């Protein structure tokens, strides 16, 4: 098992590197002179030239990228053009907020989506199942930002139960998690349902039932584990989408997170901050893919066997 994890970790590195390269290239190609943004009122030819040398902006492209990467590995994201403070500080201060929202959404997705999917998979033609399919369809089509506004209208403005902005305390996480998670919960629900349906039709389930195994045990032990695999894949794929959606959620709910930082930085033309945000998001996606792979391997005994592991490794 450990070997598997290590291999995957190593495979992650070139991908992250490549993403950094792509994003760096895009930012590099931005038209305009960054010294204008940094120096602002104090811009002069001389100061600009001096600053360029200081920041290494006059170096060839690959050298700049190399320097950036070396710094990145040590945790140095460079200096913001606008605040002239380390980008890393702001990123680290705001990133936990983003994580909170994403975690909340994930919790909602999995905690609600999976059980509902399982139940409606077990009883495929019931009213409940039909209702879940409809809700699933609607959920997938609802734009996150509109849902967020509607939730604010209902729970903050009309009922006054929940706060409409900011992040302090558990209550303020509820609406953002709901808004962000709705699309993906619907996805997960549908996938779980269809994979449950698929599995239940299998022969080995029929065998177990024929043997007289308790229906509940059948579901929990045999069906669920196998049905989880496509679900786990879908969950993994959706983390990337969640990180994309978190930008919208943070805008609607005024949450000080990395998503909003990215939008503000784009508006201010603060390239190092934009780069920093994008790199962090990409790393998140890569790490979560890795985690999904590990969970998948754990669930699938064939892969476990391949790496000669058992739970004890």
């Amino acid at each position: 098992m450990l070997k598997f994890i290590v291999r995957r970790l190593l495979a992650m590195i070139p991908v992250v590197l490549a993403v950094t390269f792509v994003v760096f290239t895009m930012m590099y190609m931005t038209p305009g002179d960054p010294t204008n943004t940094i120096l602002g009122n104090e811009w002069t030819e001389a100061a600009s030239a001096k600053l360029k040398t200081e920041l290494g902006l006059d170096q060839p492209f690959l050298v700049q990228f190399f320097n950036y990467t070396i710094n990145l590995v040590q945790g140095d994201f460079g200096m913001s053009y606008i605040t002239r403070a380390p980008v890393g500080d702001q990123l680290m201060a705001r990133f936990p907020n983003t994580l909170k929202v994403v975690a909340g959404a994930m919790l909602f997705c999995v905690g609600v989506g999976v059980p509902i999917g399982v139940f409606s998979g077990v009883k495929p033609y019931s009213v409940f199942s039909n209702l879940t399919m409809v809700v699933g369809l609607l959920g997938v089509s609802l734009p996150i930002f509109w849902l967020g506004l509607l939730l604010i209208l209902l729970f903050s403005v009309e009922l006054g139960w929940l706060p409409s902005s900011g992040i302090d305390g558990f209550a303020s996480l509820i609406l953002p998690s709901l808004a962000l998670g709705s699309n993906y919960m619907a996805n997960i629900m549908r996938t779980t349902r269809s994979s449950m349906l698929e599995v239940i039709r299998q022969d080995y389930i029929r065998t177990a039932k024929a043997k007289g195994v308790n229906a509940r045990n059948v579901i929990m032990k045999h069906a669920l584990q196998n049905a989880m695999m496509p679900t786990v894949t879908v969950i993994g794929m959706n983390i990337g989408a969640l990180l994309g959606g978190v930008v919208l959620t943070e805008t609607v709910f005024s949450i000080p997170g990395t998503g909003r930082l990215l939008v503000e930085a784009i508006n201010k033309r603060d390239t190092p901050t934009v780069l920093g945000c994008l790199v962090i998001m990409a790393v998140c996606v890569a790490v979560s893919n890795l985690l999904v792979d590990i969970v998948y391997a754990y669930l699938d005994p064939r892969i476990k066997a391949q790496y000669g592991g058992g739970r004890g490794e």
Partner: protein
Amino acid sequence: MKKNLVISLLLVLVLTATMVGGCGSSSKKDASTTPASINAPKLAPSTTKAEPGAKLDENITVVQQLDMVSFDPINTSDLSNRYIITNIYSYLFAQDEYLNNVPELVKSFKRINDSTWQFEIYKGVKTHDGKVLTTDDVVYSLQRTQKGTAIGALFKPVDKISKIDDSTIQITTFGPYPALPTALTHVACGIVPKEYAEKAEATKDWSNPIGTGRYKFKSRLIGDSVVMERFDGYFNQEDKALNKSLTFKIIPEGSARTIAVETKKADINVVFDTVDYNRVVANANLQLWEHPSQTVWHLGYDNTNTNFSNKLVRQAINYAIDRKAVMEVGHNGHGTVVFNNATFAPTVLGAVNNPANKYSYDPEKAKALMKEAGVSGFDTEIIVFRDEAERAAVLIQSYLKVIGINASVKRIENAVFAQTIQAHKAPMFITSWGCYWDPDMFLARRFTTAGIGGVNRVWYQNPALDVLIDKARTISFDNNPRAEVYGEIQKFMAEEAPEADLYVNTMYALANKDLKGIEINVEMPHNYHKLHY
């Protein structure tokens, strides 16, 4: 299956209809038909002393719209910045209700002759890092202010700043400068200990400010909040902070700020969005305070841009805009329309609302003037960085279209506004300007050569105007002759029309009903150190 889908869709429709119906009945036309309120807005008292039994150790949360820019006092005159950092740094003079001067660090001062002033500074003023403020620090700070570009024009009449002894400094000016004490209230004149200032300048890092003000800096999350704690070593214990700490929260969304106060997440909202006016006025748990303002919303243009170099075009624009409608869209009608072109708010010394009775909403005249100028039309851009300005810009865009000007609206961040102006990338822009009562405080900075690189955002320079401005400053230390000259200036500017002033919006502060010590000046609610329960 199909049945379920239909039912669910019907449910969504019913829910929608309920919301629409329910909210439709409560929406009325704003502003002009204010219902009789149980909570009518009142004028704020101008001085506050704590009563017995008051709670003086609370944490007060203030919400505002825009984030601060920098703790470096000479960086910007942006309002969102000023009202935060004036708590950290002390000033020679603080601002009163009409933005006139009130001594703070200055114990006494005298004017030795027309161009020499001496200021006695309090002794033993402690800094946040345990040292004592010296007149060297004061001189250093003010010299820094003088060298800075953002408000350099403010100090144009100032010649030398020097230390006389351990408690006195001297400022000499080129000719009489009656507004000097008021000039010293400007945010850029914040007194920073020399040691800290030198370090911060060298590293370009002002993020942990050291000052002598009523509050010590605690923490900042950019784009979200600033926290500061009461400094118990503050030199003037008669006027110390009446609360334990201040938290400034940034909430860009207007209704969200109101909701923050309604739900008691914040104590006071200092940038009240008038869209919620009817709602809060009827809410017994809130207080809405109002104050006439000297904040002029205006449409400026880059006068060096060939499109605007023709005076007739600039005048045409003045006739093309319906200011009342712009005020309706920008601030839901809460304010007063002005037809000035020199950023004179109605309550300012010598202000004339419509100099020479020249302008009005007259699209036909505007078209005629464009024709006379021989300009059939052109493409341009309006730069904005606030919601109200954006709405006003979209409306003005439609008025300009009528006279052939195709303006696109571009929204940027307030942090880069100054640079956009500097780079001549703002052919037109809409923003607000908070006037001092003394016009000298803004005229030279906004419409002369000295202001270029600072707040002369319209790039307007005219030697004839320079002469008039100097005259108004030096003609007398008495205000009446000065007011007359200011009248002349406004007539001159009406003809030149370097910008188009739109309206002055009313200042509001929305607070928890039990919050005391609310003070508002003509620019914004201020003196947050007075807030207590």
